[in-house]
């Protein structure tokens, strides 16, 4: 299960994820990335309560990063050690901006 909370303020969008970001839940966020980023200049992900990420989740993060590279910036905050290790082995620590 994945709970997604969105907070929109002017051209900034903050997305908080809680739970598991896997094959079953990734399409929920993929839909947001595909349809709601049009005028977003700052995209912030808060991963404080994200317990799990698989390559299905990484695929969506990569798609979001590619979009934001063209129109602004993207930051991923509060990444747990477990999730960070997934970013490290896949080279995502070099692609993403972690804070």
């Amino acid at each position: 299960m994945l709970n997604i909370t969105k907070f929109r303020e002017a051209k900034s969008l903050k997305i908080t994820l809680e739970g598991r970001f896997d094959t079953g839940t990734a399409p929920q966020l993929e839909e947001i990335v595909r349809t709601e980023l049009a005028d977003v200049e700052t995209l912030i992900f808060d991963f404080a309560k994200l317990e799990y990420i698989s390559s299905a989740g990484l695929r969506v993060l990569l798609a979001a990063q590619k979009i934001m590279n063209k129109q602004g910036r993207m930051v991923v905050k509060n990444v747990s050690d477990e999730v960070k290790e997934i970013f490290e082995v896949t080279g995502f620590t070099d692609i993403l901006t972690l804070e």
Partner: protein
Amino acid sequence: MADVIDNNELTIEALAENLATVTEFVDVRLEQVNCPMKAQMQIDVALEEIFINIANYAYQPGKGPATVRVDVTDNPLTVTITFVDHGIPYDPLAKDDPDVTLPADQREIGGLGIFMTKKLMDDVVYEYKDGSNILRLVKKLS
């Protein structure tokens, strides 16, 4: 088909929607041996990649079963997860690893799941035997 559970072995239809059942089956057995959270997540990531691969490709365009077995051995404490399917012969380890040093705009996501699986496990072994794909994930817990 009905799921068949025989202690440490689960046979289930290889469908993406059954991932949660497979993950829970394995996690219960990992908790019994006090598997650390970090290792449990790594095993979950690896089993997701393998099970979803089987669900997406093994029996296309039809359907079929996958068997998932959890074995634990001592000295050092080691978990082996074995996946068996009877689909088309496919060695996921035969693919080249993706270049994980490329910038985002040049990145393709293909092959990343298997690459992660190899990195997160201590050993990943594939064999095709008697009409079955057999893939083993080996993770040392101590």
